[in-house]
């Protein structure tokens, strides 16, 4: 098992030789000391500092970093579309054209036809009032008055290139699934056959399987067209699976630039190592998920120091004395670590640690079922303007059990019914048929419970939701939010003290009680949400994609915290996620859900290592870099 990750890295080395692409002559894109700042020129606050890189023809560069690293701003600066109030300086040359403060005429000649940008969110990137065909029609090369039928053929051909049927041209964005929209957007971005495509987190908003398909598509189109690509992502695995080179950014600065395989096998900066370590492996269980402590600082607060020094375990006083420049550390490699010479062996040792699988913790004594679901069915009706309502079957006879003290992973893609199960357990929806037992109470129909039973049921089960930005009331301080729940518990005499205890439990200082959610980072908010959920001392904690909205380092912190709670209080957990590496680290047992039915169930190692059901296999194969990209799979056409 442990060799698989290593093997994947070797494979990556093999697939992406360091100097892939045509490197003869000057680079297609040459970025030199690019700076992006906000505010009036005199008192401008830097957001991106001294970023330099080259992209050659046919090459794929990955820009990797957590939110706040400046990677998206770098991309926007390259295409000259920074948000209002931000301005770029330095030099960006595309095939000899200077792009910083370029005139509109220069841009008109470049945008679309030579450089194109693909954005993150397929749900907002297309004009909602225009069909897919209209998007393509307006983007196809101008001049040469095509006849209508010629244009229609061309649109069909373009849609075919991204694996979509010609009929999609007639459809509006809202009639398409996320993956299909992203394909349409890709076809539209490529309509004028650009030489360079910048893709800003193009797969982050998609399901794993769709994500893999879109990445493969991107890769095959890049190869067949000989196009250059800049792929911006927070997910190292995604960058590794597509890119020849990777550039690691942090707080607006570049910390490391390296050929992909070299970075994956031998990071030359403690932050790169931190990112690698924080990413939980899907192939095996690790005893402790290593998080980078703290969170990303603002670029201007680390102007005269190594940006990462405050969170680096190898930091010395000299690191904070001045900003270390990028220095060459190998063939085609640079690193901004001052102490790399001394600490490189330690970095290597730390990485090899990740490849050692730990024995999964001894299964906690699993008691009687705390929750048992039998033959649960639920159909949703969407009312339409006129005519018959549309029916969507969310749950089609699902049965499952969660034992006392057990951690169960519920896996499946969007629309598989995962969240419906969570909502049924929480009494937020009433199932059409079937039975839900919660610690001996029949909660199949919450409305039929009396007040005391309902209180009891709500005490037993609590939930942590995906988006910590919307699950906390922004008007209430953290302390008030927690006290509100503690008061419900009834046995709390000193709620101030208890609040501090709760915050301590989730690793936050007691002083946070005075703050409001807006002053907290995403990871910190999610910890508050967890504190709120465990305040009632529930016996079952439902975690619905609790780390999907978080950066890798915050993700590791939150997962480690949840593991700790699980062990310490023997709390049962229902862990809902589409991320198999998360489920590997968190669950004793896995239930795979597909179209509202349980298709496979078993203990974590068995299901992930030798999956039975084709759908489970597809999920596992979809994980980037666990497998090399090959041909391309058709999209599940599901509007």
């Amino acid at each position, binding site marked *: 098992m442990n060799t698989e990750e290593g093997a994947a890295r070797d494979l990556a080395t093999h697939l992406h030789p360091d100097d892939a692409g045509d490197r003869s002559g000057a680079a297609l894109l040459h970025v030199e000391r690019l700076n992006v700042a906000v505010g009036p020129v005199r008192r401008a606050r830097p957001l991106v500092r001294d970023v330099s890189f080259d992209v050659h023809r046919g090459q794929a560069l990955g820009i990797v970093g957590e939110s706040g690293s400046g990677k998206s701003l770098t991309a926007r600066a390259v295409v000259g579309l920074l948000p209002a109030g931000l301005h770029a300086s330095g030099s960006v040359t595309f095939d000899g054209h200077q792009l910083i403060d370029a005139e509109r005429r220069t841009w008109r000649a470049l945008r679309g036809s030579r450089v194109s940008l693909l954005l993150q969110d397929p749900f907002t990137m297309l004009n909602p009032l225009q069909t897919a065909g209209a998007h393509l029609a307006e*983007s196809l090369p101008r001049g040469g008055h095509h006849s209508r039928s010629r244009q229609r053929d061309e649109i069909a051909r373009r849609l075919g290139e991204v694996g979509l049927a010609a009929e999609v041209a007639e459809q509006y964005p809202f009639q398409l699934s996320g993956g299909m929209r992203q394909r349409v957007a890709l076809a539209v971005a490529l309509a004028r056959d650009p030489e360079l495509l910048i893709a800003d987190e193009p797969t982050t908003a998609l399901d794993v399987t769709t994500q893999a398909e879109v990445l493969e598509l991107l890769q095959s189109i890049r190869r067949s067209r000989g196009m250059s690509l800049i792929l911006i992502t927070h997910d190292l695995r995604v960058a590794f699976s597509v890119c020849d080179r990777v550039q690691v950014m942090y707080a607006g600065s570049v910390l490391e630039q390296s050929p992909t395989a070299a970075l994956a096998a031998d990071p030359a900066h403690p932050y790169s190592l931190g990112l690698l370590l924080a990413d939980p492996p899907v192939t095996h269980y690790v005893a402790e998920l290593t998080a980078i402590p703290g969170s990303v600082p603002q670029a201007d607060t680390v102007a005269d120091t190594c940006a990462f020094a405050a969170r680096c375990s190898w930091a010395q006083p000299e690191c904070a004395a001045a900003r270390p420049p990028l220095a060459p550390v190998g063939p085609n490699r640079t690193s901004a670590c001052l102490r790399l010479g001394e600490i490189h062996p330690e970095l290597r040792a730390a990485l090899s640690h990740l490849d050692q699988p730990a024995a999964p913790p001894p299964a906690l004594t699993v008691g009687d079922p705390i929750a048992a679901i039998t033959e649960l069915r639920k159909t949703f009706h969407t009312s339409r303007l006129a005519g018959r309502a549309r029916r969507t079957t969310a749950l089609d006879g699902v049965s499952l059990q969660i034992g006392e003290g057990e951690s169960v992973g519920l896996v499946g893609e969007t629309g598989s019914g995962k969240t419906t199960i969570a909502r049924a357990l929480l009494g937020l929806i009433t199932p059409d048929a079937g039975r839900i037992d919660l610690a001996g109470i029949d909660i199949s129909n919450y409305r039929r419970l009396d007040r005391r039973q309902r209180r009891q049921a709500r005490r037993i089960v609590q939930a942590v939701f995906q988006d910590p930005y919307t699950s906390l009331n922004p008007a209430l301080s953290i302390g008030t939010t927690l006290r509100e729940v503690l008061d419900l518990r009834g046995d709390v005499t000193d709620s101030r003290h208890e609040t501090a205890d709760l915050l301590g439990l989730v690793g936050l200082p007691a002083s946070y009680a005075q703050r409001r959610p807006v002053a907290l980072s995403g990871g910190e908010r999610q910890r508050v949400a967890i504190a709120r959920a465990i305040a009632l001392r529930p016996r079952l904690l439902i975690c619905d994609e609790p780390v999907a909205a978080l950066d890798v380092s915050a993700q590791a912190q939150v997962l480690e915290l949840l593991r700790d709670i699980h062990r310490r209080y023997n709390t049962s957990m229902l862990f809902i996620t589409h991320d198999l590496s998360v489920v590997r680290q968190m669950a004793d047992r896995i239930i795979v859900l597909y179209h509202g039915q349980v298709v496979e169930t078993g203990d974590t190692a068995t299901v992930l290592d030798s999956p039975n059901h084709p759908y489970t296999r597809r999920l596992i194969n979809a994980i980037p870099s666990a497998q090399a990209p090959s041909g391309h799979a058709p999209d599940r056409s599901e509007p």
Partner: protein
Amino acid sequence: MAIVLFLLKRLVGMVVILIIVSFLVFSLLALSPGSVVATLLGTQPSTPQVVAAIKAQYHLNDPFLVQYWHWLTSAVHGDLGRSIQSGEAVTSVIASHLPVTLELAAYTLVLVVVVGIPVGMAAGIGRGRLFDRSVSGATIVGMGAPGFALGILLIYVFGVGLGWFPVYGAGSSQAIDRVYHLTLPAVALATGLVALIVRQTRAAVMDVMEQDYITFARTRGVGRARVMLGYALRNTALPVVTAAGLLLIVAISGTVLVETVFSLPGAGQLMVQAIEAKNVPVVQGLAFFVAVLVVAVNLLVDAAALMIDPRTRAGVRG
């Protein structure tokens, strides 16, 4: 097909609303102070014959609901009773006053759309620039100025002082003369509404301009005109049309004061006179017409939304 069905459904809904409104309007008679007979008598001498005639005409000896039924059936046939003041049929009284009001409202709406929407778009696109800041300042003044006070100011400056525009009356029925006469009232009425629509449009445009689809369109070299018209304007249209529909309704009710200031013989002025004279049948008729207008405008707004946004056509939210 679905659209036709939807509009039919809405039409049925409209009819239901109008029936409810008609009942309330009819109840006005019973609710007005004094006895119903005294109200309907108005200034006529109260002889037993006249009282008997009125009782027979209005079916006053029948139960309330039967009276309502009689009133409703004749209303459907275009008979809303007779004006107490002039004895004319209420429908013809209203018909003679309504055109001026509708013309004024339409003129106002044209001003609001032609001035307000482009200015709002320009301000929203050039957010934070001098133009935007001046416009935003001006809208606050515009919203703060009451129409009738502004009307008096306009009369003083452009009518009395500069002599550019007539200060009262609706002029002859010739189109040019009518426009000439209605300009000052329309400006008085439109100012506050323009300010509102400017703010609405500005907010909507600012929101739209920050959407990913605008950025995406620009990065792939879609022309500026196409981005502005096909993307910014169309996506702004939905909230703006909704607002414009509401404003048209506000404009119709706003005519009451403005017509009085400019002595326009419109429905607004008729309403004021009828209320002063306790001329209940005319008030009833006017209230009913306004209700019909409000419901019709709402239907138009819904139909426009269906045309603008394909998502509403499919009945899918979000």
